[in-house]
């Protein structure tokens, strides 16, 4: 599996301010697959997403991250992005003074294979906004400023569909959405998979969004450890029995350290 994996996280440990958050994490995602990362609040799921993306807030204290055949453990965040890795933020930031369209334009300009004429660009982003049921007026508004939680998540989906990464980590992109927005986002996930053979690592607490997705593998994280892995059947198990069954399992793995 490792040999074919698109993303291969090996024995990864990471800390912030001397405090270790991720402990010897192993996780593989093969191309075209849909993986789910679950775990209680504060387990370290978002941290894993950020470390995979190269967030300088965290220090990698051990292990490696291999993406698309290259060791990216030391690579800068912008280069990881251009290599085809994408992280949809649990809490997208605001950039006052920068219209969303100017920002999107800049993200494309950095990708030689995606350069397009302005006319084409405008057309593309308008179509995507329409597909995601977003008012086109958002394109001219300052990035994130005054956007509702749901609108921010849609902007993340818009970028996923625009940039067409090889692998997308979606960190609670489905949380805080109303029913309609939820179906728009899940259609967006389908579209991403269809259009570019997308690979997904979905971090979520809401198993509903997974119902119509073909989930290949589930990983469970507790207190910074991967404590269980299995097939899609784990989802309904967790839904019924919660994470209780895994708590304590991390003590066992800690004992090996």
């Amino acid at each position, binding site marked *: 599996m490792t040999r074919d994996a698109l993303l291969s996280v090996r024995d990864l440990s990471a800390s912030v301010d001397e405090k270790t958050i991720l402990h010897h994490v192993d996780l593989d995602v093969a191309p075209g697959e849909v993986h789910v990362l679950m775990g209680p609040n504060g387990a370290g799921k978002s941290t894993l997403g950020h470390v995979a993306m190269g967030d300088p807030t965290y220090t990698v204290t051990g292990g490696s991250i291999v993406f698309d055949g290259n060791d990216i453990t030391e690579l800068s965040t*912008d280069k990881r992005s251009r290599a085809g890795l994408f992280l949809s933020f649990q809490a997208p*930031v605001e950039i006052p003074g920068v219209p969303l369209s100017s920002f999107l334009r*800049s993200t494309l300009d950095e990708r030689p294979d995606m350069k397009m004429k*302005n006319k084409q660009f405008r057309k593309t982003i308008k179509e995507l906004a329409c597909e995601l049921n977003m008012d086109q007026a958002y394109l001219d508004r300052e990035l994130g400023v005054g956007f509702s939680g749901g609108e921010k998540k849609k902007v993340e989906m818009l970028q996923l569909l625009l940039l067409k990464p090889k692998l997308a980590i979606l960190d609670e992109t489905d949380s805080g959405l109303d029913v309609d927005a939820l179906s728009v986002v899940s259609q967006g996930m389908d579209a991403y998979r269809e259009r570019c053979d997308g690979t997904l690592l979905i971090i979520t607490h809401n198993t509903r969004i997974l119902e119509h997705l073909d989930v290949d593998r589930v990983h469970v994280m507790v207190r910074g450890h991967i404590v269980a892995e299995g097939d899609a059947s784990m989802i309904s198990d967790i839904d019924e029995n919660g994470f209780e069954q895994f708590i304590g399992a991390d003590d066992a793995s800690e004992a090996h350290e």
Partner: protein
Amino acid sequence: MDAKTIQHVNAMPAPTWHRLHMNDTDVEIPAGLSVVHEVTTEIPAALAGAPDAFDAALAAEQVEWEKTHPEKTPEQRAEEERLRTEEEKTTYGGTAYSRYQIGADAIEEARSLARAFETGMGADAYAWMREVAGDPIVIAAPAGEPQEVAVRVAAVPDAVNVAAIDVVAAPNAEVTVVLSVDSPREGTGVTGTSLRVFAGTGARVHVVRTQTDDATFIDMDDAGLFTAENAFIDVRQTVLGGAKAYTGLAGDIRGTASRIDIDTRYLGHHEQQRDFNYTLRHHGEKTLCNITANGVLSGTSKKTYRGTIDLVRGCKGAVGQETETVLLADDGVVNQTVPVILCNEDDVVGNHGATIGHVRPEQMFYLASRGLSQEAAENMFVRAIMEQAAIDAPDEPSRDGVMRLGSHLLDNFEGFLDEEEA
């Protein structure tokens, strides 16, 4: 022309601690420049004014003003003096009673509108600019339909090209003055506009200046404004280019219930320097002013902003407000701001607010996660301000200037507006 240093340009009225090196600046005019007048105008014939129109308007206003502001009797003066507290006699707006205040008092005492009138860059810069500009372009707007005029200054290689412009708006007139300063040809040199505006009773004057010089030119934007009763002047200054850009604006908000609004947008990158000085003096009762400055600085650019709102004794009910927002996209930026509210009147409001935003690490990480390097992120901020300027440009030639400069600075800038129309 020999090299010349114009000293004490953009001086703050009430200086701060000199060690901050912010009280004023010097403008260095390089040697070997010729003086040219490559200025085009679009002024309807009916708006051409007599050469002395501005001074004549101020002199006529002097007569009117004296009628409503009679000189105080010795008894009134004695009473006023008695009512002033000891503190008021020794301090002014919280600053020590200074040489500045003695000078300012003398100007108030003289009761001369002409003597009180000033421009933001100061007397030396004004004299030099008027000398190199030659005869001023005089615009006299009559009451009636709103009018629009334009004055365009094209930078000329190895030359100083400055336009002097006097605008006199008759009572209840409305006029828009578009000033565009651009550098269609490559080279080094100086561009400038020296503007005086007299807004008569109830007149409305809109000034929109767009400067898009390449980074090899120096630009000087000097202005002095006067408002009679109920007059309103708004000024929008967009400073996008030039190695060094100096902007000085002074306003005498003289007539009751008159108002001046300033909206400045600027961009500084690489080693560019931006130097702003605003001095707005509330003389009339119920006068208003509002200064808004918004900028983006990146690279190792440097900006100094001085904004003084002077609430002169007698301006009861006046409200002055200044707000500055600047985004610093790089740690190498030098950003200096001195907002000053001078207050010698009780029944007034003076506010200033400044928001200085460094791009925070989590914002940089977000941008990086979408593939933007530090350099690309800075370019994005430049793009954002250039695009906004193009969208808000007052007319085609001003927009063409923005598009010309933007296309020099950024890939793929041309034509971003085309499909908007489609």
